[in-house]
């Protein structure tokens, strides 16, 4: 697998650190951090992103709005997206997945679960391509 560039969108520095640390499992990967949805869009203008992990509850632009915008844009519509949120409620998960997120991880995030979820999303996408 070629080294990937992950975009971690999360307003909490602790969570950005935890997620970035867990993603080091993918050797050679690059991790770009954004503090909210609007910041994520700015970062994407300068960097080619292979995978997005985003929180839902964030100031300025939340994760659901970001997922909607990415899915409606031709250049980002196929990006793998995983949603991370404190809200384990079914409704939130459904909204995220309905907007086109590939998977959902509840907080508190377990590093191992995060890695397995990213691997599963990549495997499923490979299977679809094949």
């Amino acid at each position, binding site marked *: 697998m070629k080294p990937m560039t992950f975009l971690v969108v999360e307003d909490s*520095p*602790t969570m950005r650190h*935890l997620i970035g*640390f*867990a993603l080091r499992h993918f050797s050679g990967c690059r991790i770009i951090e954004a503090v909210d949805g609007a910041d994520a869009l700015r970062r994407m203008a300068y960097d080619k992103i292979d995978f997005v992990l985003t929180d839902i509850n964030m100031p300025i632009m939340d994760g659901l709005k970001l997922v909607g915008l990415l899915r409606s844009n031709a250049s980002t519509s196929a990006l793998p997206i995983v949603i991370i949120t*404190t809200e384990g409620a079914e409704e939130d998960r459904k909204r995220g997945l309905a907007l086109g997120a590939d998977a959902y991880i509840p*907080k508190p995030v377990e590093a*191992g679960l995060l890695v397995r979820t990213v691997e599963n999303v990549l495997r499923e996408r490979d299977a679809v391509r094949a």
Partner: protein
Amino acid sequence: MSRKHPAPGGGGDTRFADALTCLRQVYGDLTEENRILREDPERPVPPGIAVQQQLEQRIARLESEKNDLQSRLDAAQNSRQAAPQQDLLTNLYVAGYHIHRAVDLQAVLTSVKEILLNLVGAETFAIYLLDGDGATLTQVADELGSPPAATRIPLGEGIMGVVAKTGISYFDGDRQAGDFHNPVACVPLKAEEQLLGVIQIHRLFIQKKKLTSQDNELFTLLAETVGAAMLTAMLRRRYLQSANGTAGHWGDLIREAAVAGDGPLGGERGQA
């Protein structure tokens, strides 16, 4: 009926010997031919043996696949068994990093709140600090979503008061939700065994069913390090206040500590 045998020393003996020699030669030729044929890789194999060979090859292939799957399964099981330990170490590393990088009290409290929200999965909680009188705890930070039941607690009163007085953590691994009077966890914050404050967790997030032994490890880290970080932050604030709050004086403090024998320079001088 009688059978006639050739007379001894007659022509019959010679013919018999010739025939025997001839037969031996034929046998030798056939044996050699058989050997060559057996060693010829392109010789046609009888149908029965060909099927057997194909089956043997298939068995070998399946054995190889089975071994491969078994080794992958073993690796996956090992990885799964190691995962909770790795998760715990990751959480401890991230929590320790963020507590120790904070240099002012508000930053320490913010880090603790983030750790409780994101690493423990606490939905409602409050952080109390010991007052100057050493007899009461006052709430300094919270994530309650509603006014607190009490902002000042006497030491020894209720679960939190007892935790503050004894310095021993309270941890209920069977419940997801409680309240101010009946929290799911209470963690004393200490520095050099002196109590500085208490964290009280009232309720966990809906997806977090109960506290685990991993959370207990994280609480131990908080209990032993947050107090020290707070103490450092308070000392820094006091120093900056005495130095009129100028940032440049922070470097002076480090130099003064070294001269006084508290820092690395003092340590080296002490050893010399």
